[in-house]
């Protein structure tokens, strides 16, 4: 049977969703896929209840929430970690109690979980950097935009890019920034960099709304757009089309949430679940960006246009 799952837990199950912060749009959308999935599973009688907590960005509070979920003896806990290490002990405790733990997006360190589900952050950085090398023919000056300092995800993506940069010394990194994954601070930082650097050949943006902020900075300062990497943020994809820039994007699918719930229930029902499930990163480029934009209306203006998903996809991912 799957990791952690023990005892006679019978359907319908109670699921705890320990969110770190529910307010950002990516989180809202992710929570949408979770509640939708739970509705589906309620219909089939597999799930009884979904308990949602919101730690308001405080890892310490998240520990408290997970402890409460253990106290309430939920059957499964689905969690995005507020810190890659901080939750290790409380999650191990939950695992020891036989609760199915499915951890996605921002991962914990401990292996005492039922499953960790994520895309490969390192590969994210590497692929983006490779694309940049190809675009610039291995030569040019680039700026790297990182997420906040001290966060594993932003660090992993950056580290993933490093070997590629090392292998291509022609690509010169002028400078790097760290900002929150938000448009306004990214735009501010990029604008200052634009004034300081008359020559910029590419922007290696490592996620979120950073790319949109960068493109807007170029646009407002009347600078010619340069090749820019990014994610499936609707705003970035729209700007990409509108400004006709050379773009590349990938996706951290919001349905990782739904998939995690699905996985938890599978594990509780006695299925064998692999402890580490890597969801492949799609590539969005000029060839398929239109197909994403065609569905843009269904997503919030500051949201992420994620790909479709269904049970078949989930089963395939579980079986891989």
């Amino acid at each position, binding site marked *: 049977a799957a990791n952690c799952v023990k005892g006679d837990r019978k359907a319908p199950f109670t699921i705890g969703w320990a969110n770190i912060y529910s*307010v950002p749009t990516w989180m*809202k959308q992710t929570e949408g896929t979770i509640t939708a999935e739970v509705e589906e599973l309620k219909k089939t009688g597999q799930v009884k209840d979904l308990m949602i907590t919101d730690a308001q960005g405080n890892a310490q509070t998240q520990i408290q929430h997970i402890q409460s979920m253990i106290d309430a003896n939920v059957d499964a806990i689905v969690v995005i970690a507020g810190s890659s290490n901080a939750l290790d002990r409380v999650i191990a405790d939950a695992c020891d109690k036989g609760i199915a733990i499915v951890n996605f997006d921002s991962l914990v360190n401990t292996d005492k979980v039922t499953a960790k589900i994520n895309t490969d952050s390192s590969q994210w950085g590497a692929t983006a950097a490779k694309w940049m090398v190809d675009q610039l023919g291995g030569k040019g000056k680039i700026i790297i935009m990182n997420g906040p300092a001290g966060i594993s995800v932003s660090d992993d993506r950056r580290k993933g890019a490093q070997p590629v940069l090392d292998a291509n010394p022609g690509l010169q990194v002028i400078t790097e920034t760290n900002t929150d994954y938000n448009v306004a601070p990214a735009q*501010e930082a990029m604008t200052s960099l634009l004034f300081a*650097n008359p020559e910029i050949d590419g922007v290696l943006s490592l996620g979120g709304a950073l790319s949109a902020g960068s493109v807007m900075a170029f646009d407002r300062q009347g600078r010619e757009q340069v090749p820019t990497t990014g994610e499936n943020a609707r705003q970035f994809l729209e700007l990409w089309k509108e400004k006709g820039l050379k773009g590349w994007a990938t996706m951290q699918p919001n349905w990782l949430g739904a998939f995690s719930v699905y996985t938890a229930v599978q594990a509780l029902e006695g299925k064998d679940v692999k402890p580490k499930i890597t969801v492949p990163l799609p590539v969005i480029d000029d060839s398929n960006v239109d197909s994403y934009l065609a569905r843009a209306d269904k997503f919030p203006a500051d949201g992420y246009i994620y790909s479709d998903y269904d049970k078949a996809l989930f089963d395939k991912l579980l079986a891989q």
Partner: protein
Amino acid sequence: MNPVSTAVRGLFRSPPLLTFLLVALVWLVASLTLRGFGAYGHLRYLLELSAVIGIVAAGQTLVIIMGGIDLSVGAIITVTAILLPLISPAADPSGIVGIALALAIATGIGLLNGAGAAYLRVPPIIMTLAMATFLQGLLVMVAGGSAVSVTNASVIWLGQARPLGIPAGVILWIVVAISVLLILHRTPMGSRFLALGANPVAARLSGISITRNTLVLYALSGFFSGVAGILILGMNRQGYVGIGDPYLLTSIAAVVLGGTSILGGRGTYAGTIPGAILLVTTTALITIVNASPGWRSIMFGSLILALLLISGREARR
């Protein structure tokens, strides 16, 4: 003592002037040493960014002068930026109605803060913190917490236009600055704020109503946060949750850097203006420097401390 040295001394005893001099000095040194820093476009952009902080800090200055503090400015900015596109009626092409509605909401929130502080006797820090939490909840509910791109013509104009080469946001800031300075130093209301901040008991026994002035002040703070929210919305074309967060601490920092006492009763908006510019400039400087995030953070903190050493001495006992 000769008049010149007296004048020079007076200048060094005036925190606002001193802070202005600091800004000028930092700009001068930076533009001589850093490529691209002194470009007109760059300075203009820095002023534009400062305008947002400056406008938020307008309300914050008044509130702090009266001995309070407003921790809900960030949340009010976000609420305004997210609600405005939703409530701008399509029938009004100018967009003025939407702006008026949004400002009314922002002012209303401020008024609620004031009512909590005045009638329920909740310390302002608690009241406004709770209000910020409350508004977060509201945002999660409204529109699923996500934004809509702005189509309101006036808002876009405000964020993008440059009449006579000066960004509209900066012009707005000038208007706000003049109004606040007038309120603070040329109307009875401003003197009442100062008196209440320095000694509420004496002020009350002199016939100055704590209740009424508290209401007015927090409403004003809400209003200015709303104005800033609209300006940010125009500059970004789109609001999102968290757009106002960076302005909470920066607004307070701008006020204190400008020489206003956090304990109330002493200070002026004339100091907050260079305080805001100084903060933005420092951030921009640190952005350009190529260093690891840890070192950048250390440099930023040290720079603020160093500037404070020059401008922020408190009077000796």
